[in-house]
Every structure is written in structure tokens, then in C-alpha cells.
């Protein structure tokens, strides 16, 4: 399954995503330049972390207008699996592909640590192989990760099941202490109404090997392979007919 990983000026998690997919998943992956206008060659897309355009003005605010984003929007509407990680999550919310906004951490400090997140929904391509309620241990590294939506929208997201990941303690309980940045309802990740676009602040692409602290991230990245299998089966069917 071919992964496309978008590099914006200032992206710095693109190479980690590349390594996670190649070394961790053993799948082909390529970096895609921010001026690219055609993403049809890829089976899924990762919008990686970093500081696109230095996070100046607002994280993701300037990157969302990069030429490649028109293609990203097209692929999103076409239902292609897209994962926004950290700054990628911020870019997708700025672009309106995901609801809400990511504000300055409540602590006002950048925070780098390992946290626990609970998988709330398994009906997205990025969580399809996980059991609901699974607790994953993942790294975070961000200064603007406080997820915000107004109450009405929050209720809507909960109703439609668009909350995909929540910060929890080691035992899977949603607590204030487990919330590293003041996100509403401990939200660590959400998806769009169509469910194919997922964004989260934690870094699954930094957790693909025990030697560097853990490999829980692979479970997220591997989930999307199921979609790859579907695509492959479809192709075989076509050949058969």
C-alpha cells in the first residue's frame, strides 16, 4: 500500500513518518512536495507534524493554502484515508477538513512526553484494526494542542461519534491529570463526518520500535492496511471479470 507523506516548508515530522511506514510497517512511502497537485498515485496520505511556515500567525494557518492542499481536499472528498499528525492535525482543522481548532496548551508551555490515549472509535480506516477502548501509549510534542470546539459542536461530535482518541490514564480512565494540554473532553483526535480523515496530536509515527520507547503507533498505521487489502481485492475482482 503506497503512503504519500506531504512535506510543507517547515514540516519536520515527515521523515519520521517515512521511517515509521518503511521500517515499522514495511510499506512503500514517498514524500510529496507541497506544490504537488496530483495525489491520485497514493492509497493513503499522512499530513505530518512539524512547524509548517514556522507556526507563524497560527499553526497550520499558512500551510492550508499550499497548492497541495487542493489535491488533499479532493482526495478527502473522494474518501481516501488521510491522517493528520500534530501540525498535520492543525493544518486539517485550519483547512476545515476536520472540526474544531487547536489552541495554545493550557500550561502555555511546549510539552514533550509519553501519554496514554484511548481508542473511542474503530470505524475509521486508521483505527479499524483496534478494539474499541484499547489504551495506546504514544509520544506527544506540541505547544498548541488544546483541542477546542464550542459546546454545541462538541455534543454533535459525540453524537456522531467523531471523537476518535481521548487522553486517559494508564487504566483508561478519562481524568484531568491525564489531559496534557487542556483539550475539551480530553479529546486527542477526531475524524470528519465521512470518517476517512483523522487528526490527532500524539505521534504514532514516533512509536514504531520498542528500542525508542514503544511501538503502539504501529497499530494505528497498520489499521489502514485493511483498506489497502480492500483495494487489492477490488483490483483482483476486476481482473477476474
Amino acid at each position, binding site marked *: 500500500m503506497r503512503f504519500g507523506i506531504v512535506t510543507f*516548508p517547515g514540516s519536520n515530522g515527515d521523515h519520521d513518518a517515512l521511517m515509521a511506514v518503511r521500517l515499522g510497517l514495511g510499506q512503500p512511502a514517498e514524500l510529496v512536495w507541497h506544490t504537488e497537485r496530483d495525489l491520485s498515485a497514493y492509497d493513503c496520505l499522512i499530513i505530518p507534524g512539524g*512547524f509548517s*511556515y514556522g507556526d507563524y500567525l497560527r499553526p497550520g494557518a499558512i500551510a492550508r493554502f499550499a497548492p497541495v492542499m487542493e489535491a488533499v481536499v479532493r482526495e478527502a472528498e473522494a474518501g481516501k484515508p488521510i491522517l493528520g499528525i500534530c501540525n498535520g492535525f492543525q493544518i486539517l482543522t485550519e483547512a476545515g477538513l476536520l472540526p474544531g481548532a487547536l489552541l495554545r496548551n493550557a500550561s502555555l508551555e*511546549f510539552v514533550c512526553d509519553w501519554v496514554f490515549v484511548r481508542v473511542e472509535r474503530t470505524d475509521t480506516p486508521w483505527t479499524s484494526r483496534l478494539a474499541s477502548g484499547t489504551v495506546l501509549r504514544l509520544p506527544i510534542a506540541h505547544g498548541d494542542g488544546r483541542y477546542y470546539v464550542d459546546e454545541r459542536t462538541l455534543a454533535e461530535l459525540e453524537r456522531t461519534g467523531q471523537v476518535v482518541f481521548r487522553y486517559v490514564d494508564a487504566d483508561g480512565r478519562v481524568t484531568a491529570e491525564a489531559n496534557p494540554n487542556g483539550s475539551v473532553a480530553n479529546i486527542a483526535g477526531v475524524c470528519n463526518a465521512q470518517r476517512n480523515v483523522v487528526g490527532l496530536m500524539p505521534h504514532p509515527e514516533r512509536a514504531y520500535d520498542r528500542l525508542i520507547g514503544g511501538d503502539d503507533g504501529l497499530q494505528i498505521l497498520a489499521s489502514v492496511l485493511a483498506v489497502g487489502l480492500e483495494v487489492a481485492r477490488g483490483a483482483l475482482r476486476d481482473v477476474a471479470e
Partner: protein
Amino acid sequence: MPVTPEILREVALTAEEYERAVALLGREPNRVELGMIGALWSEHCGYKHSRPLLKRLPSSGPHVVQGPGENAGAVELGDGLVAVLKIESHNHPSAVEPFQGAATGVGGIVRDIFAMGARPIALADSLRFGPLEEPRQQYLFRGVVGGIGWYGNCLGLPTVAGDVFVMPEYRQNPLVNAMCVGIAEREALVRARATGVGNLVVLVGADTGRDGIHGATFASVEDPERSHRGVVQVGNPFLEKLLLEACLEVLATGAVVAMQDLGAAGLTSASAEIAARGGTGIELDVALVPRREAGMTPYEVMLSESQERMLLVVRPERLDQVLEIFRRWELHAVVIGRVTDDGLLRVLENGAVVAELPVSLLTDACPTYVREARESPDIRARRQYDPRSLPDLAPSDVLPALLTLLRSPNIVSRRPIYRTYDHTILTNTVLPPGAGDAAVLRIKRHRFGIAIKTDCNPRYCFLDPRLGAQHAVAEATRNVSCVGAEPLAITDCLNFGNPERPEVYYQLVEAIEGMAEACRVLGVPVVSGNVSLYNETEGRSIPPTPVVGVVGRLADVRRHAGLGFAGEGTVFLLGPQSASLGASEYLASCHGVVAGAPPELDLELERRVQALVREAIQRGLVLAAHDCSEGGLLVALAESCVAGGVGGTFAIDELLAQSGRLDETLFGEAGSRVLVQVGPGAEGALLALAHAYAVPVMELGRTGGASFVVRGLLECSIAELREAWGAGIGA
């Protein structure tokens, strides 16, 4: 043009130095030339006081691929790879504007690394402040840590190690030393030598503004806050990230002959240095330099210290290829001049010559000074102090003393700092900050890994600069050995006061000689470094602070050790069984006394202890290893228990019997001491190994449970220790 004393003060040249310049030049330099000479003859660029002394540091060794003299040093790692390392100070700018001062310090050291053609993979920072309870120090602390995090995090480099020390003497002069480590293919290393007459000089990166003009000179005079002139530099890590990626891509094409970052004294220093190293000349036209502001004079353009700029020497026939790559990265790159064969640095403005100086005059001809060295009698007297004149600690006071030490800013957890630094990016971090005595990084697709740490106990150096500098080398390398790595090389940052004062010059000489001796015995060369003098205000100098940054190599990165005790095991003390209280954290924190002689250091024993620890780890005998530094034995035991979340029961009766004093036994400090925890069944092997290395070894007790017990002396819960230590620095 008659030179007035004002003009000379402006460019920080003495009358004698001016006469020297006139004599060498055979005429009076004009204002632009004078500014250029002043900048390159400053302490910061010219190393006037340190150059004669630095020669004493050993800089060669079997692993050394590049010693001092280039933008950074390099050591062999194996499989054709080298580690490139360098440390640099940004003390004066950080005293004026802590956030931007520290941030631009990180930017500068990173450029040094990729100028060598290496990909930066990690940062470390060594910080010194006054008492953190004071609002001003809080402001400096938060600003500095915030600035380092902002720049490093945005660049996408993990900050994985460092050290912090607090002493009142740093109030007016905080220290900010940043270290960067990169990896390169040995064959792909770039030297900053402008060769090939007719090759083009290309400037790339930020537009040039009036930033930090005279930065080099202001880093060479006392009292940063008053002496500071020019516009404070504001860093742009975003631009640096583009510059980093683009420069590495450009270097890979082979179109580039040389690359040099623009740091202190900007264009003047960069062009003079590459020409000097290349044995050539350079001609450039300031009118071609992209400006951020209108109306800048040639003087300002040549001396601007605007950040995020690089100078390249490019083969004319490959220019388009180079410019195309920079265009793709949306970077501004222009040809501003060419390499000549006349050994002159010729500066034009729209074709008209505005300055023309022999390159050698700017670089080699810089005067050097050997000053009078005399130790301050006050410090000598302090060193005579006998800690044993104090009443010994009562058993009932052991726990309070331990908790006081665990809360001391020089021991308490550094988590509040490194939690704001991205240390997982690049997915190489095997032992993150706090997990081990040094950070451990893997090198993807290779079996070996590297370890990084900085250290320097300025209290030791204050009371005995020679011995203190030896301890700095010993502790930094010991920390690296304690994670299982063989120290390969050192990069040092010599932070001192005004060398024109005999007692400061004495400290400088002693520290360098001490460092040199330790490096020789431990077999670790100094491959790069930096000197920062005049760190003093109103005649009050900082303690001598020769910060030592070490890079070590683990043959098999999977074979490493952290400092946290892991479950049940036996804990041994390796190394000297006696310790002393002179210059100790205990004296300072519990008695408010900064005096006495620092612990003696047997460098031969140090070498054996480190070799022993490394072999024990490589053989897989070790569950945890932690060196005993500030706070001594009991603090080290407590740190390893808290870090591992496991208690233990220890006995110190034998040690106590030898010393006769409780305070000395529990909190006394000594070099060459390491705690190791081994699993059931490994005890014999460790003892045999210690015997083979002729290293004293003593069993201290066993780990397990949730309480911290020293037989007959103290019993408390790990939680209580964690509460004290875990409060965190600056809290």
C-alpha cells in the same frame, strides 16, 4: 581620518593594536577596514587570550577525523560514518534578551554542524543561573529554556541532554552553552576552504539587517547589559530549517567547494576565514547583498550579525543547479563575489573599492596576549577550609538533610526543562533526558549508537580550577560510560571572567591544563570548542566554568544502561570508598558554606572505573548504573530508587567505619564513583570483573519494596523522596 579614542573604543581596539594594524597595512585603515579589523581582532573572533593556551589541549587520537580549526570536529563511528560535534556559548546575548539570545545560540551551533556537511541529529544545553527564587533569575531561566525549546523544537532537532548549575555568582552573567551533534559520511565531510580562483561566492538565507552589529566586540567586554549595542537579533528557526535542508541537498550535488556559516562578525569573519583556510583571496560587492532595511552602509553590511545566513563557494558551471535547489526551498541566494588569488579581502560597493585588507592581517596577524597569572588569595584561603571542623550530622538529621539536597537546584529533577524540549523527534532517542546519566541515540540501520552529555561543576572549578576542570572531564565522560558508551571526543566551552585580571587568567590557565591532563589520561581528545571571556560585571567574575561536552559510542546500542533501579537486584559501589565534603553540595545547601578543597581525583582509577562499567554493561550484567556526583552516595541511591520507582535496603556501616563521619560518608563527594545494580546471579561476575580492573568494589544492599532504608539510620517511602526531588527545577 584621525582616529579618536572614541572610534577605537567603538571597535574595541587598543592604541597598540591600532598601531600594529597600521604597521602591517602600511597605511591607516579607513572606517570600514577599521571595523572589520576590530571585529576579527576581538577576543570572540581572535581568541587573543586563549589561543596560546588552547594549544595545550590534546586534539589527536585514533578516532579523530577532524580536529579544531574547522566549523566543528569529527570522530570516526564506523561503517564509514563520523560524528560531528561542537559547543558554543551565547552568554552575552542571553543576558540582554534571554529568549532570543538562547534561541539564536542554538541556531548558530546548528549551522556550524551542517556547514561540515553533517546532518544534525541532537542538541544539548549547559546552563548557569543565579538563585532561581529571584524574579530576575526566574525571568532569565524561563526565557533561556523557552528560547532553546522554541528554536530546537521548530527545527525538528531533539534536545536530549545537558546540565544546569545554580550559583549566586551567575546573577549578572548567566551562561548559555549549546552543543550540537551531527552525523556524516566520512567522505562527504566539507571543509570551509575557499579554493579555485574564479569560483563564485554565494550568500544564501535571511536578508541582511542591522542586527547585532558589534556582537563580536560586545561579547568581548564586561557587563553585557551596559555594553550591548546594535539591534537585538531575532531568530527564525523556520528559515533555518529550510536552510539546513537546502544546504545538505546542495552539498550532495558536489557543486559546492566550501561552506561557511555567518556568525560573529558576519560577512567579514565568514569571508576572511574561508579565504584564509583556502590560502586565497575574496572579492565581494556589498551592493549585491540582499537587505532587510534601506540605507545600510558597507560597514553595517560587513559587520551585521543577521541570523540564518550561509556563505558558499560554488563552481561557476554548477551555479544554476545550486540556485535552482535554493529556489525550490524558497530561499534567497545570490552571487556576491568570487575567489581571487591575491590573498586580499576586497570589499566593493557597486564596483568601487570600500575596503581592501590582506586576509592574513585579519586572521593570523591578530595579536595574542599572555597575561600575568596569580591566584586570588581569598580563594586560596577558602580552599584551606576544613569541613571536619563542622560538627558531624546527627542520625536524626539524615533524612532532613537528604530531602534538602534532593530539593537543591543543582540536584532536583530537570524534568521541567527537558519536558519543554522535543526529545523524541527523529525517532532515534533510546535513553531520553532523565533516563540515564547520558542520552543514548541509535543510528538507524547501524548496530552502534552514540551517547551525549555535558557537565561542569563550577563550585569545584571556583575552589580549584585545575582539579575542577579535571572533574568536569571525568564526570562528563563517566556519565557517558555509565550508559555503556566509550567516550570518543570532547567539545569544550571555556566560560571565564576578564582575562586581563591576573586571578582570572590564572583560572583560565589552570583549567586548561587540568582539562588537558584529564583528556590525556582518559584518552579523549578535544576536537572542537569555544571560548567566552569577560563574563563579569563590575569586576565580579563568574566562577570558572569549563563546560565539557562528550560524544561516546556504544558498539551495540541495545546494550545500554539507565540510572533507574530495575526491580530486585544487588547494588554495588564501584570506585573510591572514601569521599570528602570540600566544595560539596552538602556544605553549600545544608551549611551555606562554599569552601574546602574539591575531592581529589585519581585519573588512572577513573579510567579503569569507566572501562569496567562499560564492559559490565556490554556483557549484560548491569540493570542500572548511575554516577555519584553532587550530593554524594545517598543522593545517588535516592535518585536511582526514585527513577526506577523501587525501594531498597542499604548498609553503609563499613564506609562509616572507614570515614568516622556520617556527613562525609552519606553526602561526601568523590570522583570515579559509580553505583551499579546487577540482577540475581550476576554478582560474582561483577566482582570478578572489578577485581580484573583493580577497581575497589563494595556491596551496598539490595533493591525491592517501596521504602528507602539505610540500616540503623533512616527509613522513608520512595514517594517522600519523589515528592522532594520531583518538585523540579525552577518550581
